[in-house]
């Protein structure tokens, strides 16, 4: 009961609409575009052959259910850099998974091919940013957004840029320079600048979750600030969303159960993931305790064990007098996009 009470206390403004935006490849689907063979196979894959990233389906379902239970308006969108030719298979896959969504966009690669803009085939920043900004115009007034991507291409840059444009921290002039450095098509830069100019500044993006699919070291994301949470699996994402008030503990249980039943996770692996996200400062200790107690009671996390440390009487007294401090949360930083783009690209 205690645990549930604690989780209820953290709920932020329950009636403010929320938008969850998902990248598709490597975030929702385990697309194998890193190999030529995988890339060639994608267009011919049947919906039932497409594999989702472990834990993503119960997580998306949980986000919608929790919002609905609270009477909160919720929208879920997908954005993909894949061509519309595979849209049918993708939509069927989402239906098979029981995912209700409000919109999905694909990149018209054929158009770029016909116009001879081969560079645009691989460059997604301009495309995704303009699509996000266009879509934002249709969102409910005052709605908040939570964004989900991966570390394969430029999702951290695109999402951070989108968040800062909406917040009014990146203006049209700055955007021109940043997108120019990235090598975005001049036509798309003009569109993005026009869309950015329409924005009424507000803090819209609560969090950006980046699925570390490529095993990028966590320090590589430090320059993106505390808003961006790099997570190694969807259990880590789920517990952070619980901490942020977007999920309840029963919804976290659904994600954990999905990982154990469908992806051979063990309670030990989940416990290690939980400890890791706490150590990295993305989850506060009270939330971690709540998750630990709730999931351990359901056999999804191992019971607490002896730690092998034998504190002296003095150590115990000191610990009793002074509760363990939380790790410092990652600092909120003003992003220097020019430097960040260069560094991020160099590391790819």
């Amino acid at each position, binding site marked *: 009961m205690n645990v549930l009470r604690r989780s209820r206390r953290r709920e932020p403004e329950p009636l403010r609409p929320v938008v969850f935006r998902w990248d598709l490849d490597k975030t929702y689907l385990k697309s194998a575009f890193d190999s030529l063979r995988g890339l060639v196979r994608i267009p011919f894959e049947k919906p039932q052959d497409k594999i989702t990233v472990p834990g993503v389906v119960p997580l998306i379902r949980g986000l919608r259910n929790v919002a609905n239970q609270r009477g909160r308006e919720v929208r879920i969108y997908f954005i993909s850099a894949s061509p519309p030719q595979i849209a049918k298979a993708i939509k069927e896959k989402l239906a098979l998974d029981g995912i209700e969504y409000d919109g999905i966009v694909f990149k018209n690669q054929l158009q770029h091919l016909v116009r001879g803009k081969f560079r645009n085939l691989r460059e997604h920043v301009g495309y995704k940013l303009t699509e996000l900004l266009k879509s934002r115009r249709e969102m409910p007034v005052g709605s908040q957004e939570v964004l989900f991507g991966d570390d394969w291409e430029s999702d951290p840059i695109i999402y951070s840029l989108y968040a800062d444009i909406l917040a009014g921290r990146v203006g049209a002039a700055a955007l021109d320079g940043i997108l120019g450095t990235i090598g975005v098509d001049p036509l798309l830069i003009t569109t993005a600048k026009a869309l950015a100019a329409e924005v009424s500044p507000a803090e819209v993006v609560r969090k950006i979750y980046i699925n570390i699919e490529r*095993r990028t*070291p966590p*320090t590589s994301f430090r320059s993106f600030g505390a808003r961006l949470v790099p997570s190694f699996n969807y259990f880590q994402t789920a517990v952070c969303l619980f901490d942020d008030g977007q999920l309840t503990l029963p919804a976290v249980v659904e994600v954990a159960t999905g990982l154990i039943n469908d992806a051979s996770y063990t309670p030990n692996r989940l416990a290690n993931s939980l400890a890791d996200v706490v150590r990295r400062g993305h989850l506060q200790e009270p939330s971690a305790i709540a998750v630990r107690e709730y999931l351990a009671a359901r056999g999804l996390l191992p019971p607490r064990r*002896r730690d*092998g440390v034998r504190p002296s009487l003095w150590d115990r007294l000191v610990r009793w007098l002074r509760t363990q401090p939380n790790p410092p949360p990652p600092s909120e930083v003003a992003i220097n996009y020019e430097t960040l783009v260069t560094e991020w690209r160099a590391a790819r």
Partner: protein
Amino acid sequence: MPTIAIDAMGGDLAPDEVVKGVAQVSLDTDIQCVLVGDEAQVQAILDGLAYNPEQISIQHTAESIGMAEDPKTAVRHKRNASILVAARLVADGQAEALVTAGNTGAAVLACAQHFKLIRGVRKAALASVYPRQTEYPGQDQLALLLDVGATIRCDATDLVQFALMGNAYARRISKVPSPRVALINMGSEESKGGEVLTHAYRQLKTIGGVNFIGNIEGNDLAKGKADVIVCEGLLGNVVLKLLEGLAEVVADLAGTAARENWRWKLGLMMLASGFGRLRDMTDYAAYGGAPILGFEHLLIKSHGRSNARAITNAIKVAAKAVRDGVTREIAAAIEQL
């Protein structure tokens, strides 16, 4: 998937290289690793690496034992030193084996304090592996020498037990089906070396399942005559240090020669690829570490200067020993004695 406790703070290059080694293990294998050490320091290193957090846990402890510290004093005063906490985790069943590149004396004492000896085993033995010539196809490039310092003096039964322990370890880890086991002595004849060695010789000759080839002399150590070489701790330690010292002297001499005479330098340069191959063969990082045998749990002691690769290999060796039931095999062999 075995769980291995790793002393994150032990070794000349700890914790950086130890954590790097563990991060690599988490990406390459299904081994669960418990890093024991300063949590903030360990996490700060992990943050800069590619790793799989699902396979790594950190057990925080602020204390550690330095390489130059007196093991007895340090173990007595630093109750929560990383090596001791790691040993406790293994003793409590939270990990199945321990890897450390830290202070050897402290590692032996940590085992003695927290691990039980296998039923029937009278003394534990610290083993070491060293490169040597090979004599037959499929023979391991490395020979196992034990004991190299856990004991000082031993009687015949101790030596026989060491032979059985070394035999089991070599069979499982080196995958040599029937390792050649020998005693170091001052002559190859059965009657040489005094009462202890003569008695041990006679006992080993009669034990089934051990390919005992008799005594070998010091000049046979570098040849491939035996795969498991047994001796008491005092002698083993002298032999080990002599081998290490000789290698250093040879390297020094070559360096001096190259500096003093351009023809020698040219000659050495022509032999460079051969030296490179020799270096690869004798690279301690490739074998990871050597075990302390005789306890119910296994400790793999890595070289004090272990880099990430050595730590990775030591963890893999420990996991392999757990999977293959090395301690069970030793217990079975001792029971038959």
